């Protein structure tokens, strides 16, 4: 047992990565699905074990091949990485059982096993990003997860998805290349790729031009991956055209993990050495975050398609996350970290329910969803509950985030920012209301038959819906975990 326990950090990453080629060899959709479910559940168990095993204020280290850390590649799991590991593997563990029926309807039969192979590959890449302590290793995992998500988006029957995926490929590759340029500049100046070592050695070269350019390249590159306004144009197309399972999975994980990387670099690597305030990094982020929440929320209100509306709402919610980063205090960062989780859970629930609607109606166009509550009562009710969390109504997960965001803004003395957070929540109430109005108040067209989504899809979706409410009332793990994660990020590698 001891032997396995020592190797949990690498097992976390390597199991999904190994499952991918195995699935390709199996070539059988059902077996592939079973293996995917098994791997994602085991991953979730490992992530939880690691989450509770992280020592207070410390980290779990794992040295690859026993090469000591600055020389070899090392993994370092502290409170922040463990939080992200739990988030990613939780979403994978819930989406995997859901995938079978949704994929059966939206992807051609002979590609099913390939879908599962890409899915576990993407999970492995995302987990690797969170676990690694090496800047270049991080890039490789970033590309593993990105390349597999391009395939996942384009794997469906919708021809729009091909172009959406191509756009994402171009933007994502520019983002990753910018990141690697930044890392290259840092490597030139410090001679190391180990993040902890790099943070330390930056003290010798702190405000030199290559280091400042590295900061710029890494921030812009990761902002592309995060879909921070105005670099978000790939996101609505990609999420709305992709198969529903993929939208659900990516909305909860892909951008969130990139946010984690950005936090890591801003607070742990550059933070202790560079005068980020004087460089106006946070000022710029505040402006972009406000633009993201206001503009994207307004755009979301006027969408005619449900999935597209959810995608624009994602861009707006990312604005809240970056706002928390921009406020640069403990409460703000806590709000950001906990919103990774809260928004992840909420958006996954919404996209999974939308997947049920796609399965039964074949479309998520608002006009065809008129009177949906009579045809799919459980789906619509779940949608409303998760929608409340999206708005940030008290007793929902979204409220916890908004509370900390407002507190952080007030601590900075930005009372107008606090007011703005509340005002943008009202805009999100508008687009959630549009769904309520369509589903409950409008008369259905044609005959009314109960066509509730199958249980295999409803149950995972409802687990997430219940989580939206549960984590709004009981914040023991999500909030303390986020607070510890925020502290770990700000403390850096000491």
């Amino acid at each position, binding site marked *: 047992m001891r032997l396995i326990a020592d190797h949990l950090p690498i097992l976390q990453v390597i199991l999904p990565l190994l499952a991918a080629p195995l699935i390709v060899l199996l070539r059988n959709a059902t077996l592939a699905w079973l293996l995917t479910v098994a791997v994602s559940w085991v991953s979730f168990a490992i992530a939880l074990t690691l989450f509770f095993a992280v020592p207070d204020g410390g980290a779990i280290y794992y040295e690859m091949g026993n090469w000591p850390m600055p020389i070899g590649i090392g993994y370092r799991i502290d409170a922040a990485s463990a939080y992200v590991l739990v988030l990613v593997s939780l979403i994978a563990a819930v989406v995997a059982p859901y995938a079978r029926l949704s994929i059966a309807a939206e992807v051609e039969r002979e590609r099913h096993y390939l879908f599962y192979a890409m899915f576990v590959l993407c999970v492995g890449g995302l987990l690797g990003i969170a676990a690694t302590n090496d800047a270049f290793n991080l890039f490789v995992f970033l590309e593993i997860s990105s390349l597999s998500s391009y395939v996942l988006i*384009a794997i469906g029957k919708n021809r729009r998805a*091909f172009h959406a995926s191509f756009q994402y490929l171009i933007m994502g590759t520019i983002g990753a*290349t910018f990141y690697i340029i930044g890392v290259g500049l840092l490597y030139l100046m410090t001679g190391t790729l180990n993040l902890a070592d790099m943070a330390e050695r930056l003290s010798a070269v702190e405000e030199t031009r290559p280091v400042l350019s590295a900061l710029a390249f890494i921030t812009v590159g990761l902002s592309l991956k995060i879909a921070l306004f105005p670099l978000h144009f790939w996101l609505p197309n990609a999420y709305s055209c992709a198969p529903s399972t993929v939208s659900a999975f990516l909305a909860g994980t892909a951008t969130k993990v990139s946010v984690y990387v950005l936090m890591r670099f801003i607070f742990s690597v550059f933070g202790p050495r560079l005068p980020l305030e004087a460089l106006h990094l946070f000022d710029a982020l505040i402006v972009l975050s406000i633009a993201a929440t206001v503009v994207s929320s307004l755009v979301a209100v006027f969408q005619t398609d449900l999935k597209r509306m959810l995608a624009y709402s994602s861009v707006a919610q990312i604005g809240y996350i970056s706002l928390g980063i921009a406020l640069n205090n403990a409460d703000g960062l806590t709000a950001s970290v906990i919103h990774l989780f809260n928004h992840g859970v909420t958006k996954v629930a919404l996209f999974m329910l939308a997947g049920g609607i796609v399965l039964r109606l074949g479309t998520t166009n608002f006009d065809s969803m008129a009177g949906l509550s009579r045809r799919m009562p459980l789906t619509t009710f779940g949608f409303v509950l998760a929608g409340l969390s999206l708005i940030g109504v008290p007793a929902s997960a979204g409220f916890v985030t908004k509370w900390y965001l407002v507190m952080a803004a007030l601590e900075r003395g930005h009372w107008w920012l606090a007011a703005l957070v509340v005002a943008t929540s009202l805009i999100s109430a508008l687009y959630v209301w549009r769904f309520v109005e369509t589903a409950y108040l409008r008369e259905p067209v044609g005959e009314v038959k109960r066509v509730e989504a199958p249980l295999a899809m409803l149950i995972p979706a409802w687990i997430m819906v219940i989580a939206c409410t549960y984590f709004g009332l009981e914040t023991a793990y999500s909030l303390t975990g986020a607070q510890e994660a925020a502290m770990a990020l700000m403390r850096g590698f000491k």
Partner: protein
Amino acid sequence: MTVGSHYGYWAMMTLMIIGLYILIARGNLIKKLVGLSIFQTSVYLLYIAPGKLIGGTAPIIAEKFGIYSNPLPHVLILTAIVVGVATIALGLALVVRIYEAYGSIEEDEIIEKDSGLER
């Protein structure tokens, strides 16, 4: 610090900007991928060029050789090349599927064909 002493960086920046320009200015999907490839290749240069020491040998510890080039950038870029190849291959595969679905690889024609349909 003159242009001459840093010509490696100048070459890298020029390639990078050429690549990015093609990406932005061209609507043809294949040309976009060519631009992307040039853009990625410029980064290989950023890593490789500073690793070379003038007069340096391969990293062999022996009395005859005093200075040697840093081997790590080569290893890193070997990995980056693999990533780059995978990206371009996937991009080209997507272009094939786009061509099958739309009969065109010009971005504006693709958008036009989609906008005609119900959103």
